[in-house]
């Protein structure tokens, strides 16, 4: 079923909307949540919450396409769950990803306010768009999807060391970019 038809079902308040979303994007949402939570059970819970949140937000929203919309909800909810459970040490990619990103900005205990959050979001978009197409995809796979280096290397037919070096160089570019944008004091 096309995304537009699924969204129409949400607007018509038909529960078939959830069934169709599950069929089309359930696996995708689970992948995103699992990469962050590293637990099948927790990821399944998040995916159920994704359906609920989509049900509650469509309408008023009319997402087109639907895939990144549910994907973003899944990532957001998984991150919330990750932070809530973070007292216990766990595996997965997120600790590695956070460690890598810490090279781009000196850790500062002060949180960021809404204005800084929006500015950072805008800067990240501009930075990613400045990269070549392939580097964009690999960077987003690592730092949006939290995919493992092994998986990225396999999908892009690269050596793991090639992916590692490419990401290292891109993080260096991000650090310089954020520096120029005034994010690093």
């Amino acid at each position, binding site marked *: 079923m096309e995304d537009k038809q699924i969204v129409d079902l949400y607007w018509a308040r038909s529960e078939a909307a959830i069934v169709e979303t599950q069929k089309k994007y359930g696996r*995708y949402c689970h*992948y995103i949540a699992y990469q962050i939570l590293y637990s099948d059970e927790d990821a399944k819970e998040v995916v159920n919450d994704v359906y609920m949140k989509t049900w509650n937000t469509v309408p008023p929203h009319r997402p087109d*396409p639907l*895939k*990144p*919309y549910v*994907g*973003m909800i899944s*990532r*957001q909810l998984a*991150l919330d769950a990750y*932070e809530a459970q973070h007292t216990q040490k766990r595996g997965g990619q*997120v600790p590695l*990803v*956070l*460690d*890598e*990103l*810490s090279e*781009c*900005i000196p*850790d*500062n*205990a*002060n*949180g*960021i306010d809404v204005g*800084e*959050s929006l500015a*950072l*979001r805008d800067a*990240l*978009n501009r930075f*990613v*768009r400045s990269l*070549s*197409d*392939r*580097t*964009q*995809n*690999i960077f*987003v*796979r690592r*730092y*949006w*999807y939290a*995919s493992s280096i092994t*998986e990225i290397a*396999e*999908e*892009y*037919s*690269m*050596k793991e*060391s*090639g992916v*590692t*070096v490419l990401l290292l*160089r891109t993080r260096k570019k991000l650090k310089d970019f954020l520096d120029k944008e005034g994010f690093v004091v």
Partner: protein
Amino acid sequence: MTSKDIFREMGGLDTDLIMKAAPGMPQKKSVNKAWIKWGVIAACLCLVAAGAFRIAVGFIPSQTTDIFREGIPYEIDSVYALPAKYDGKILAQNLELSETADIEFYYKEGGNVNDTDDWYSLIIADDQEDGKLLMHCMFGETDVDDWKVSSVFTKDATKTEVINGVSVQIARLENSLKYEYWYYAIFEYDDIVYDVRVQSNDPNEIYDVLGQLLEE
């Protein structure tokens, strides 16, 4: 601000960036005008190749020599920007690359970028309209047989073609997400070992690239 803030705000990337990087996202396909030029050659070759590709399915590449750990990266905008050495015989110059192709040139640590003896490798990655193209050129001192044995080819997956007088080994690898195959070609020309890969379901495409590279 912490790395967590960056990771969280990455969540606000534009939807098109998220979509095209999604796991298993297939490449867009289109007709390349070069297909017409090489179509006849490819059609003939693929009849022969089809049998070999059947036995190639399922083999797994092992890790190869790590070309990234050695050498100093030297970013260039175009293969034409390379110093005019090797008598202009760097076959990559025959490729039709898109403007967004990543071209990385590596030379030996402590060496001179203008000295061909210090050249290590050239790596091209291009998302062309008709699929992904990756090419590694290894300069000098690289044994093509070692490369073949240690990289994508196993003995029963090897298929040799002679294209414009050059012996080329070709194989197919099914990628893990089952959307498309990778076709590999490895050959040696003028002391340079070429490792060319095309992501595609169409075996003609590797022949098209080989046709461009080895045109007379």
